[in-house]
């Protein structure tokens, strides 16, 4: 029996979150997770991910054993945790736990186990992108923001392997969202909740990529700038009056007005970092410097025919600007310009723009772009160092598009936005699908795609392209051949073999001289390895090649008789 006037929701609809924006965010998170799981089996596997897998194999078992045998685990800390090159604690621990839980329990689940945490973090990033955009500009922006991020071939490529970049972007944006919501909230309990979340995410971010510590001074600067602006300009009626009583000293009022999320980050950040980094439990002082240094380790950087140990200062900026498709870069820049304009309006108090919010967004977008050229961010050839900036720019671009559609044609803003989005986002979608699984090498149209970038001497940027040749290798290698795959870690090779991507009868060789088949990547920084295969096999002619628009990315060389 139903009561008139009362709407009865079905059980399933009660499970769904209330509000269109929240549902959109959840749909994006689920969609991204499904796509990444499906795409993972065809994606590449590079040297950096191999290093993480090697460390994760050691550490995953330790983390799983910790609750069962805590004392034994503590004794094993020194043996298990070393200064891991190129990665920090959280990505390794999460990859290890994922592998310990999933690897071997699911057919083809070895590599997926290592990547499980990455998939979950990508889903989290999609959710945060959508929620942040919804907070700023409603449901249209909520639908757009994740698309602006994940439809860039390079961003999707960075989301697939177990690594630090996507996690850093997700946690960076998560801290900003929690802090922003905490600032806006009038409810004390909600502010505390948001602050706690910001503190936890900040700790996880620092345990992911070291440059995340900058969030703390960044948000402190934001607070001081907003306070200073409040002092310079009279507060408007809508702005919150200071909560401290008159007559209190400026220093005390400064401390009293400190956002609770800053305090939470200061307290919870180190706690989370230490909790996720077991070597700090036993030997923090002696290992701090080597560990911090090791996280900055990166492969050599090749561009314009030259090779360097580290990328030039402008490499991350070029990657952020030129790797995404041209229409996406335009939306990013438009979002940045729109935020700058709103910041000025907010400063003048002329419009509904909020100066604190706009300043926070601008700082969140620009700080990673400033840190990467300074060498604070782990160096890399691709879009990875700038990924946190691209996440914030995606939110800003989505807001700019939604706002423009509303301003241009208020009565049909949604339809107008859809029309423009179809024209703007179809090329990135097409590029993402067409270039997969070589999205890291898919430079944007500004530089003529992968061929134009190669002509200009820009790096190939695609790590792990060799793994895309495994299907052909399995089909055409003669039985019982020895395969040389330089620089890929034993854990990664083992995972590929268990997943059936490397044929079971193929043995692994330690050098080209002892191998019948060699799988090498064309990254110019490692051509010497490829030339060793030429010497060993007495041929420079590959038997199989992975290429993107004629630009070679990886090749298989074979001795006579080893390839059918």
């Amino acid at each position, binding site marked *: 029996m139903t009561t008139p006037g009362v709407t009865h929701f079905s059980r399933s609809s009660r499970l769904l979150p209330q509000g269109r924006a929240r549902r959109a965010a959840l749909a994006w998170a689920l969609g991204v997770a499904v796509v990444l799981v499906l795409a993972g089996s065809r994606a590449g596997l590079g040297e950096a991910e191999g290093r993480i897998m090697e460390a994760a194999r050691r550490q995953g078992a330790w983390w799983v054993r910790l609750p069962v045998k805590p004392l034994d685990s503590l004794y094993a800390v020194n043996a298990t945790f070393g200064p891991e090159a190129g990665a920090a604690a959280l990505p390794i621990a999460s990859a290890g736990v994922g592998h310990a839980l999933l690897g071997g329990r699911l057919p083809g689940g070895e590599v997926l186990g290592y990547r499980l945490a990455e998939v979950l973090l990508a889903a989290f990033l999609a959710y945060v992108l959508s929620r942040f955009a919804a907070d700023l500009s409603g449901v249209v922006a909520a639908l757009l923001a994740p698309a602006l991020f994940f439809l860039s071939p390079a961003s999707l490529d960075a989301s697939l392997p177990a690594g630090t970049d996507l996690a850093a972007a997700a946690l960076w944006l998560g801290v900003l969202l929690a802090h922003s919501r905490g600032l806006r909230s009038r409810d004390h309990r909600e502010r505390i909740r948001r602050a706690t979340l910001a503190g936890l995410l900040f700790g996880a971010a620092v345990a992911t990529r070291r440059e995340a510590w900058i969030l703390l001074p960044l948000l402190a600067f934001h607070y001081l700038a907003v306070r200073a602006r409040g002092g310079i300009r009279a507060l408007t009626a809508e702005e919150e009056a200071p909560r401290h009583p008159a007559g209190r000293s400026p220093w005390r009022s400064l401390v009293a007005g400190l956002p609770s999320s800053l305090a939470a980050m200061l307290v919870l950040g180190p706690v989370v970092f230490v909790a996720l980094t077991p070597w700090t439990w036993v030997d923090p002082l002696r290992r701090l410097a080597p560990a911090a240094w090791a996280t900055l380790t990166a492969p050599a950087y090749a561009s314009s025919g030259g090779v360097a140990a580290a990328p030039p200062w402008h490499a991350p900026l070029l990657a952020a600007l030129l790797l995404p498709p041209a229409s996406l870069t335009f939306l990013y820049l438009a979002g940045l310009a729109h935020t700058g304009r709103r910041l000025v309006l907010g400063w003048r108090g002329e419009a509904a723009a909020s100066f604190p919010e706009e300043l926070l967004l601008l700082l969140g977008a620009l700080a990673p772009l400033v840190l990467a050229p300074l060498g604070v961010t782990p160096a890399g050839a691709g879009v990875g160092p700038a990924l946190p900036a691209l996440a914030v720019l995606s939110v800003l671009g989505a807001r700019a598009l939604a706002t423009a559609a509303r*301003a241009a044609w208020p009565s049909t803003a949604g339809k107008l936005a859809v029309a423009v989005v179809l024209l703007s986002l179809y090329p990135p979608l097409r590029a993402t699908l067409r270039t997969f699984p070589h999205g890291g090498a898919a430079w944007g149209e500004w530089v003529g795609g992968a061929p134009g970038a190669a002509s200009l001497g820009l790096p190939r940027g695609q790590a792990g392209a060799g793994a895309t040749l495994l299907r052909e290798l399995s089909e055409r290698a003669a039985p019982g051949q020895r395969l040389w795959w330089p620089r890929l870690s034993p854990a990664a090779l083992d995972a590929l073999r268990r997943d059936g991507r490397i044929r079971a009868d193929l043995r692994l060789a330690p050098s080209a001289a002892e191998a019948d088949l060699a799988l090498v990547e064309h990254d110019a920084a490692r051509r010497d390895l490829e030339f060793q295969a030429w010497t060993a096999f007495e041929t420079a002619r590959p038997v199989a090649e992975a290429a993107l628009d004629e630009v070679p990315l990886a090749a298989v060389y074979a001795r006579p008789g080893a390839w059918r």
Partner: protein
Amino acid sequence: MTERRPDPGADEAPPESHPEPTLERTPTWPRRAAQVAVDAAWKDLTDTGRHLLDTGRWKLRGAWSRRPSPAGLAAWGFLIAAALLGAATLLLQTGLAARLPTALDWRAATALLERDYRPGDAVVVSPAWAERARAELPARVPVFALPRYADEPLVGVRRVWVLSLPGVPFARDRIARDIAARASTDGGTQRIGAMAVTRYDLAQPTRAIAWLPDWLASARAKVGDRLCAHDGPRAIVCPGTPVPIAREVREVAGAPRPCLSAQPGSAASGPVSITFTGVPFGLELRGAAGVVGAIPSPGAPPIRFAVQVDGSEVAGLELPGGAPVRRTFAVRTAAMAEEPHTVTVVLSSPDPAGRTVCFDAWTLP
């Protein structure tokens, strides 16, 4: 028009007037009718025009008052720009495929080289990254993929086939210009789909009398005073040295180089020397050396590379510790051309730091 008549109530008589007799006659009725019609039409027209003007002005005023705000105009501008850029991006994406060679183009180029290839020919790809040629062209055709060719010796090459992709974005023709500058004739350019193939005959091909990497099987090597032992025809193993002296293809300054690779001797072990006996000489001895590998070793001391002929040093190079470079040398040997000589290559460094030197040398007639 009405006729004016005298006012009947006026006291004074009007002054007597003497109107001039007029020749005008009262218009005929058709003329009057036409006049009325014209007047009516004119009135109607002016009324309508005035109405139209008023309406237009009112509409314009309304439209101006309802004009988009500057923010609205900016929004329209942004949306139009985003849509146009999206369309342009799509056009660029689809246009790129047409500028790249297809599988059919590669098969046609292969057929061409199968037919016209002669010993002493080599293919040079332009741009240098277009190394798909290695996989597609016949196995017997050597393929060069270097960024510049002005100073390349191209030992043993008499004719060069420049295979270029002219439609590729930012493609430059400097490779073709380098080759053309060294050519006596060119065989014309053939377009094969998105590829262009041009054959050049080199004016002065480099034909070596002796190329030292080929002489490794008969060479002797020492580290300090300790003799090294042969490990097959392509390698020599020295005591206390983890890496053998070998004939290899190695990466030097970003390019593949067939060469002899060896680690220099340290201050403790003494220099590494490799001696080739009975090397025929001509007018010139040339060669090059560079440190192998991609990663620079800043701070490492330089490596000294020296070439001795019959015990006398004729050439010396210093290979710095920074970014890997390839250095060349050339020695006039006209006075030695009559008989074979002994050539010794000496490699030394205070601290080799695990570096390997890749070197080659050849004598020219």
